[in-house]
């Protein structure tokens, strides 16, 4: 089976993360072990406060780890240079579309930020950078607004520009925190197609999703509750579905619909 044979893109061992300060320091991840297979799409699901985003940030190397370590492509994340890491692993922030910081940049300038890990310190965008940004914006159907200010777009449109920014990195491993936020159903379907393309080309995708039915389309699932991993493995296994049902207090049931699965509240 491809699953068992594929190498690891990301591997976290005995990961513990506490957030907050002083007396309000509280553990968010509790001795978590996860392995993300290369060339596959893994979705992380769980109720609010389960530690999904924190796990994703830890995997992206954006958090100081109290205990444990993370390996990217078999090499300890801490030993990667920040530039090499940024070329290999790209991370999409949660709720980035509601952030006002980039409102005064043009759409193409926002997407061009994805090329930062490839650019020289003072050098202007190369022809390759321009071509990659154009392709990325076209992939998320954001190319027609390339000359509009980012702040003039709707939430869903902004999310698509941020996705293009992520794709423009051309990283082998993509981590996305709630990438479907603000996207309408057709563009959610486009996102699924985009992820499948990415995986077909050998890339690795990890997404935190609240849309359980979308998450069930992934190759692998990580089901979390209270800072711990309840299930990690192929998404089509009955155990995966049971774990999802359990972490949502059995208020969700998974039904089969043709060749796919859907989660419905009960």
């Amino acid at each position, binding site marked *: 089976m491809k699953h068992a044979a594929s190498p690891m893109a990301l591997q976290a061992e005995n990961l513990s993360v506490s957030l907050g300060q002083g007396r309000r320091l509280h553990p968010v991840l509790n001795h978590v072990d996860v392995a993300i297979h290369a060339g596959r799409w893994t979705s992380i699901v769980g109720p609010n406060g389960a530690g999904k985003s924190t796990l994703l940030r830890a995997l992206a190397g954006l958090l100081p780890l109290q205990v444990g370590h993370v390996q990217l492509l078999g090499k300890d994340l801490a030993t990667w240079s920040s530039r090499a*890491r*940024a070329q290999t692993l790209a991370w999409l*922030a949660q709720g980035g579309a509601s952030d006002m910081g980039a409102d005064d940049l*043009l759409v193409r300038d926002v997407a061009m930020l994805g090329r930062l890990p490839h650019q020289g310190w003072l050098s202007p965008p190369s022809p390759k950078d321009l071509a990659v940004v154009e392709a990325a914006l076209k992939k998320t159907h954001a190319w027609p607004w390339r000359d509009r200010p980012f702040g003039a777009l709707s939430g869903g449109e902004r999310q698509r520009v941020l996705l293009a920014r992520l794709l423009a990195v051309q990283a082998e491993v993509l981590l996305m925190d709630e990438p479907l936020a603000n996207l309408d159903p057709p563009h959610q379907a486009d996102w699924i197609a985009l992820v499948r393309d990415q995986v077909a080309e050998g890339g690795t995708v990890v997404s935190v999703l609240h849309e359980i039915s979308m998450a069930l389309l992934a190759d692998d699932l990580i089901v979390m509750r209270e800072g711990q991993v309840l299930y990690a493995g192929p998404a089509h296994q009955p155990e995966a579905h049971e774990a999802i049902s359990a972490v949502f207090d059995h208020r969700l049931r998974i039904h089969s619909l043709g060749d796919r699965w859907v989660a419905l509240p009960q």
Partner: protein
Amino acid sequence: MQRTTWLAYGLFGAAAMLALLGLGVGSLGLEPIWVMLADPVAAQIVWDIRAPRTLGAWAAGALLGLAGAVAQGLFRNPLADPFLLGSASGASLAVALSLAALGVSPFAATWVIRLGLTGAAFVGAVAAVLLTLTLARGVQHTFRLLLAGVVVGMVLGALTSMVTIMVPEVLQAMQAFMLGSTGFVGWSAWSIMAVVGALCLVAAISLSKVLDGLSLGESTAQSLGLPLLPLRAALVAVIALATGTAVAQTGLIAFVGLAAPHLVRAVVKTTYSRLVGLSSLMGGLLLLSADLLARGLIAPQEIPVGVLTAILGGGYLLWLMHRRSS
């Protein structure tokens, strides 16, 4: 591309024209510059007083505009002001203290003392920024930095008030500084501002990719491989140096640093590599025109230029608020 280039030429051209006009404006009102240059005494006035003052207003405005653009990018807040890190209050306190210690009467404020006060203001500005950084425990938390800047500003402002109450003689001299004035800028002050301005501009442009990256949030910037800690420290240094230098030569001039980047963004949307330069040109033009008005409006009397920028800047902000809410 074309629009930013045109804006740059426009701002530069307008500043050059206003500067020529500025050479002709004095306590006697407006006189054509060519008439004045024909008279040796008048030419001396133009060369020794009006020229450095006019160019000084432009340079100080450019420093403030540059610091404003960098501060707004660094703090990811379009209302961030270069004075936020406490530099202005630090400079005022240093000036108040040196006036009190030297026992200076405002009438004895000769050039030599003025130069000393300039140095004190600069040291005060830089010290206040360092204090803010210490309180914020470094530059890694923008919000803490902002909060520490406000605290330092308040406390140092209170200390300045205390000094002026304990030594009331300094009050009048302090006033000139607090209100902001370009009247004391000579060639030496102008050269300091020009050199520091050029250095800060080069530094800001070379750090502009960090400001662009930060616009998507600190974590995203970090995920893009930007070493944030040293780069943010460098950006804070640029803000401190630019504001400290401008404040030291011209006192507290409000709103130029805040308004200049806004005005640029109202015309063009562009990345920070261009914004910092355009914002400097805009700041220079703003302060140059404010200085002209300050000298010309009620000549032979002079309005402190800081008062004028505060009124104009306040009006502009009100208009901005109105436009955003409507």
